[in-house]
């Protein structure tokens, strides 16, 4: 357990000192969302109608931005090999890195989402469901993304390959995340959608580390 926390602490420290990655992700999120009123026109009804979808799609793309660096830097400087040779299992290592990744990129996205939704004139009933759905959905993005990042480790143009691999897997999170907000605005219960997002997360929690660890093992052979 202390080794697990040591990895989380190290990754957080690296993210805070290097600073660029987390800030970049949020800046991309804000800028991309702000582009939409320019593109589709400033009518409040139209913006309110697409607000949830725009925020979610942009959040997915923003989350992708930092994923290719999840294992890449550790792989290049030998840290990954050294980490693989410590008593901590690779599965636990992946989980620790996902947790740190979510804290530095997913959590800022969740916090920025309501502000951006306000910019897009989202109806008042939609804010809490948006935050809840993103709170449940973004950890899944980090976990599923870790599998893609591990599979594309060492590949040329890993970033592009990673997007092609991971974005289709993000579709369920997108569908139920957007539906939760739309249902809330329409006055229908959002519990089913949040339950499915939670189920997706609960499935990803054990499966993604297993798959990512297997991919890392073959990358380190």
């Amino acid at each position, binding site marked *: 357990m202390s080794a697990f926390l040591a990895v989380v602490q190290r990754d957080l*420290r690296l993210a805070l000192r290097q600073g660029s990655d987390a800030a970049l992700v949020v800046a991309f999120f804000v800028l991309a969302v702000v582009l939409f009123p320019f593109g589709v026109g400033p009518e409040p009804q139209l913006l309110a109608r697409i607000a949830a979808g725009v925020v979610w799609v942009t959040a997915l793309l923003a989350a992708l931005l930092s994923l290719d660096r999840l294992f890449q830097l550790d792989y290049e400087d030998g840290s990954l*090999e050294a980490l693989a040779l410590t*008593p901590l299992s690779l599965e636990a290592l992946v989980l620790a890195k996902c947790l740190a990744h979510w804290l530095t990129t997913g959590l800022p996205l969740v916090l920025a989402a309501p502000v951006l939704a306000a910019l897009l004139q989202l109806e008042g009933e939609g804010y809490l469901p948006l935050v809840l759905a993103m709170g449940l959905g973004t950890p899944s993005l980090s976990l599923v993304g870790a599998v893609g990042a591990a599979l594309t480790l060492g590949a040329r143009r890993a970033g592009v390959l990673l997007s092609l691999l991971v974005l289709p897997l993000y579709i369920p999170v997108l569908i139920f995340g957007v539906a939760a907000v739309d249902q809330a605005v329409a006055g229908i219960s959002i519990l089913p959608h949040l339950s499915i997002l939670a189920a997706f997360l609960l499935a990803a929690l054990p499966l993604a580390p297993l798959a990512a660890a297997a991919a890392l093992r073959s990358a380190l052979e």
Partner: protein
Amino acid sequence: MAHSPETSPLSRFSFSGSGLACRRGGRLVFQGLDFALEAGGALLLTGPNGSGKSSLLRVMAGLTTPSAGSLAWSGAAVAEDLPAHRARLHFVGHLDALKPVLTVSETLGFWAAMRGGARAAVPPALARFHLEPLADLPCRFLSAGQRRRLALARLVASPAPLWLLDEPSTGLDEVSTSDLLAAIARHREAGGMVVAATHADLPLAGAAPLAMQDFAPRRAA
């Protein structure tokens, strides 16, 4: 006499391999390799570039699966319990596994924590390789020799009976090389084992030589 952490008595271990063969990228690197190490023993791997010194070290560490043969630790097959094997070895490869933004003592504290070591073990380990004046310096300011010394300081920051060293003296000056030899001698006195691959003359008292070219695959006529 006071004992520092790495001289804690290690019980009588032995480490051996029989009939080992390794295939890298479809090419057989070595075959029919046997070795045996007793507590306090050392093995010096020599041979030309590409003769499989690093590959053998990776096989010994459990990073690479041998294409034939097996490893045994005190008689028990290593392949049956790789996590336990990882807990008893230190591997120092070509790459130093340092992060540019972490300080010297943070780096060493992290690697010690990964192996269940205590923070208190960090200052003596730094002292052993004359790194105390650099303790609060971020690793990006270190010279190649200083980086190497920090990578080697990991060996003494947390105890492990088996040290696998790949070209450990690369980039080290005379003083640092003698620091390394002293650390190895203390480790062996306490019953630890060392396997080192080297081109340089590494004077390890009573080390068994292992010339890798003797195990090169015989070419079919």
